[in-house]
Every structure is written in structure tokens, then in C-alpha cells.
């Protein structure tokens, strides 16, 4: 116990400055609460610093490279295309700096006090923060929000930082000193696919090792097929149903032993990126002391107001169950802030949380799949429109993909949608709104969509659903 330690009376304390925590802090401050935000690393959390933002910056440039590589088809040719990797990293760092700087300005501008340090609960109403210098401060709070996020899971035999720094998590993979010549990605979930494809495009030889039967196992098979084809065109080797057994240092790089259906193989790589999932940061938080219940996998149990089992303590984002996505974290953050501020009706009552994979082509889904809708007792009807019949897709030279609507055959209500193709990340917004609004599929058909756009395919899919297709002969 430290002698003479300080205890401060605080109002709302937010632990974690990621898209969950900083958004909650801003909303709570706007609602008149006095907010203290505690962050041990960098404002913006995983998403802004080592997640969504740097990965999408890399992907955007990798996309340019691909466009140019394939430009000959429409008359575009470059004699010598070169990528200055350190420059790319510097630009990416710049984007991150701009955004995290913006977050800090927003927090300060809204009067949020920012405390740098590591926080944990000491009791049901007290949080201790160990500041960078080692000093401890205690905060007695009226309300607290746990927004400590998640961290990458290690794979047995592949310790992060191991084999002299050649085994990477996504964090390190987004800040390499030089372009890896050979990259092995273990885990073909969305992070592995996004980064693997980007590195392949900017010049790495990439192999993706996925344990499940196919990459992106969380998505329906037909959504993934166009992505797989593209990966192959990008020169990525995809090993599915393959288990990474271990890694050894070899004279020519890291040797990764992989068990495939055809027997054991050894892949040689400069770096091994392990992306096999993330786990919530809830172990060293003193949640027990605070009376916050956590499930067997470490997730904090919450109700629709994002309140935990402990009075006055809320939790949001990657530490609570549900998809680990930045926009879910932010949306929950707003709910928690409003619940704390006593806003009537503040509840996480989302019908539609979109999921996007920033592969090329992009994959995006919202609401129910056909299988989920059936399991929920609906008589399901679908409507699919292929981008090969979309004028916009053709003018972009990107005609792989489709948009599918899932609706209730009896009521005609839209239940969900899946898209794969260029621009799917933006097209999904209309579909999310439609699900939230309780739209009929017919509403999508009756809404005039600008020509030529990718979103038109939403209208066309709706017309297929209704049995009156225009730009395909049969649905």
C-alpha cells in the first residue's frame, strides 16, 4: 500500500480510449457529466492505432497497385511501378496521427479529463490508476464504463515476438520496417485475409493457412468464393483445412510446419502473421473486486443498457459479447453514456449491425442470413442480383459479386442482406437502414436508385425477390 496516496472524487470514469470508450466519454460529457477517461496506451484504441484505420490505409494503396497492374486492359500502363514501403508506412502513420489527434481534441474540447495510466477496480466504487511514472491515483466514481477492448490470441507454438521477432500479431504486421518478401499468415479470418491480400498486392509472396474448411468461415460460402478467386489472381496461396504445427528458425527464414490433407508441408517465410482471434481484456481489471460478472470466456455480461451486474458499472465494445467491431463498440458507448446520464429509453436495440470485410472484392452483411432466418421460424425468400449485370460494376471493370436480399416470404419484410463486390462496404448502409426501419423488400424496389451505381443492384435484387426482375431473366 502506498503511503499518502491520493483519492479523487470522480463522476463518470471510462477505462479505455478506443472507439467504445472515447465515444462514450464524449457523449456523456455532452450530456453534462464530468468525465475522466483513462488510457494506458494510445487514444483511439486498437481501431485507430493498430486496427481498422492502418489496415484500411494499407488496403487502399494495395488496391491502387492492383488497378494499375491490371490497367493494361483499359490502356493504362506504367513502365516501372515501384512502392516505397517506408513512405507508405509513414503516410499510414500520418493518417493514424491525424485521427488520434482529432480524438484527443474532441475529448478535450468536450471537457473530458484524460488520464494516462493503467486502471483496475479496487472495489465496487473505486478505480486505481497506475500512471506512467508509477504513481497511483484512486478514483471514487459514480459511474464507470469498462471499455478495455481486446488483444490478439496467441497460437501454441507461435509466441508473438518469438523466433527473434519474426512471429507477429496484426499490430506488428501493420508497422514493419520493410516489405516482407515472404509472408505466412496463420488464420484466414477477416484480419488475415485483409492483410494477406494487401501485402500480396504490394509485393510479398503470401501464403494463408486456415484451419477450417475454408477461409472466412464466418461467412456464407458463396460470398467467399469471389474473394478466393481474387486472392488466387493476386498470387496468394490459400491452404484450407490446414493446421500450423510449429515454427523453427532456418538459415533462409522461419520454417513453418503445416499439416494439410495432402500431408505435412514446410513453408519458409520472413514473417509469420498469426491472426486466429482476439480475447477480451478483462483479466487484470479487478472486476471481481467490483462485483462485475464475467463469463467463462472472459466477456462481461451486460443488459440492454450495457449495465453489468455491478451497480453503476457499465461495459461496452470488445469486452462484451457480440461481434468485435468498432461501430458496435461506439454504438454501445453511446447507449452506456446515455443510460448513465439518465436519458429515457437508452437501450442497445440494434436490429442491424453490419459486418464488412475489406477484402477485394469487399464482403458485407447485415441482419439475418437465409439459414438464420429459417432457424428463426421464417418462411424465407431470397432475391439476388449479380454485379455482372450492373452497369456501374462494368464501368469500373469490377464485375465479380452479387447482392442478395433475405426476406420473409409471407410478410415481404426484409430480414437481412449479403453483398460481395466492389463498394459492398458502402452499399450495406442502405440495407442496414432498411432492416432497422422495418422496410418491406418492396420499399427497396420502389425507391429510385441513381444510375449507374452499385446500389442499384439493391433495387434490382428487390425486383427479383418480387418476381419482377428487369436486368436478369430470372431470379
Amino acid at each position: 500500500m502506498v503511503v499518502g496516496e491520493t483519492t479523487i472524487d470522480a463522476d463518470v470514469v471510462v477505462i479505455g480510449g478506443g472507439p467504445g470508450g472515447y465515444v462514450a466519454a464524449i457523449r456523456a460529457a455532452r450530456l453534462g457529466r464530468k468525465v475522466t477517461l483513462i488510457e494506458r496506451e494510445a487514444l483511439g484504441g486498437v481501431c485507430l492505432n493498430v486496427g481498422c484505420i492502418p489496415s484500411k490505409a494499407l488496403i487502399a494503396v494495395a488496391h491502387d497497385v492492383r488497378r494499375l497492374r491490371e490497367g493494361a486492359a483499359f490502356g493504362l500502363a506504367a513502365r516501372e511501378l515501384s512502392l516505397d514501403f517506408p513512405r507508405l508506412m509513414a503516410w499510414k502513420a500520418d493518417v493514424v496521427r491525424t485521427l488520434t489527434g482529432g480524438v484527443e481534441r474532441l475529448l478535450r474540447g468536450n471537457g473530458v479529463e484524460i488520464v494516462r495510466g493503467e486502471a483496475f477496480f479496487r472495489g465496487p466504487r473505486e478505480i486505481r490508476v497506475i500512471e506512467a511514472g508509477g504513481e497511483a491515483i484512486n478514483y471514487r466514481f459514480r459511474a464507470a464504463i469498462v471499455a478495455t477492448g481486446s488483444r490478439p490470441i496467441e497460437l501454441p507454438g507461435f509466441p508473438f515476438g518469438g523466433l527473434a521477432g519474426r512471429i507477429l500479431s496484426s499490430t506488428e504486421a501493420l508497422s514493419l520496417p520493410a516489405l516482407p518478401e515472404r509472408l505466412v499468415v496463420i488464420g484466414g479470418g477477416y484480419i488475415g485475409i485483409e492483410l494477406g491480400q494487401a501485402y500480396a498486392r504490394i509485393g510479398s509472396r503470401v501464403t494463408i493457412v486456415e484451419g477450417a474448411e475454408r477461409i472466412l468461415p464466418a461467412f456464407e460460402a458463396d460470398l467467399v468464393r469471389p474473394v478466393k478467386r481474387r486472392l488466387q489472381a493476386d498470387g496468394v496461396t490459400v491452404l484450407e483445412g490446414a493446421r500450423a504445427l510449429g515454427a523453427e528458425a532456418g538459415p533462409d527464414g522461419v520454417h513453418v510446419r503445416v499439416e494439410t490433407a495432402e500431408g505435412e508441408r514446410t513453408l519458409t517465410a520472413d514473417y509469420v502473421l498469426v491472426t486466429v482471434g482476439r480475447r477480451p481484456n478483462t483479466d487484470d481489471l479487478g472486476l471481481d473486486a467490483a462485483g462485475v460478472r464475467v463469463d467463462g470466456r472472459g466477456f462481461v455480461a451486460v443488459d440492454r443498457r450495457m449495465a453489468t451486474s455491478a451497480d453503476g458499472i457499465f461495459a461496452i465494445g470488445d469486452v462484451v459479447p457480440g461481434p468485435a467491431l468498432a461501430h458496435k463498440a461506439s454504438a454501445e458507448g453511446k447507449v452506456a453514456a446515455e443510460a448513465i446520464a439518465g436519458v429515457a429509453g437508452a437501450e442497445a436495440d440494434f436490429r442491424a449491425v453490419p459486418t464488412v470485410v475489406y477484402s477485394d472484392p469487399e464482403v458485407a452483411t447485415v441482419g439475418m442470413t437465409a439459414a438464420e432466418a429459417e432457424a428463426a421460424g421464417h418462411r424465407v425468400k431470397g432475391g439476388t442480383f449479380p454485379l455482372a449485370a450492373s452497369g456501374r460494376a462494368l464501368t469500373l471493370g469490377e464485375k465479380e459479386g452479387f447482392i442478395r436480399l433475405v426476406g420473409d416470404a409471407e410478410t415481404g419484410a426484409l430480414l437481412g442482406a449479403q453483398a460481395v463486390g466492389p463498394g459492398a462496404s458502402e452499399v450495406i448502409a442502405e440495407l442496414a437502414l432498411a432492416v432497422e426501419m422495418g422496410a418491406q423488400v418492396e420499399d427497396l424496389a420502389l425507391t429510385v436508385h441513381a444510375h449507374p451505381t452499385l446500389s442499384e443492384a439493391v433495387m434490382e435484387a428487390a425486383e427479383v425477390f418480387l418476381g419482377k426482375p428487369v436486368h436478369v431473366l430470372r431470379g
Partner: protein
Amino acid sequence: APPSPGAAATVRAMPSVRRLARERGVDLRTLKGSGPGGRITREDVLRAAKAQDRAVEQTSAEKAPEREAAPEPAAAASAAVAPR
């Protein structure tokens, strides 16, 4: 504040509900929406249509066969171009 004529002129209902209203001959301007923000819902229109049908049945039984068609001037013109 004085009522804004523009706001009043715009009946709020989703396209499928507007279509349904046209199909069933319900004038949306005569309805009060029960949905969020005063939006007119599918149920509002179906209820109004049923009430309308009942009223028609009571007053003139001979008009019954026409009930299904849109009772708007539109119906006459569309008959003119329908296949014989």
C-alpha cells in the same frame, strides 16, 4: 409555431404503404399515422381500407364488384388500354 404547409402536404409513409394505399383506394391525407414520428403504417392503411369497404357495402351493395379496383379516375383510363 404556425403549421408549416409543406410539412402538412407531405404525408409520411413508406413507399410500400403508399402503394398499398393507392391500390386500396385509401387517401393517405385522411389518415393519422400510428407509426413513429406520425408515419402512416401498413396497418393504418389496411384498417382504413376495411372501414371504407364496410361503408361501401352498407351504402350501395351494387358497387361491390368494383371494390377491388382502384376507385380513382386512373381506373377508367387503365381499362382503356387493357387487353380485350
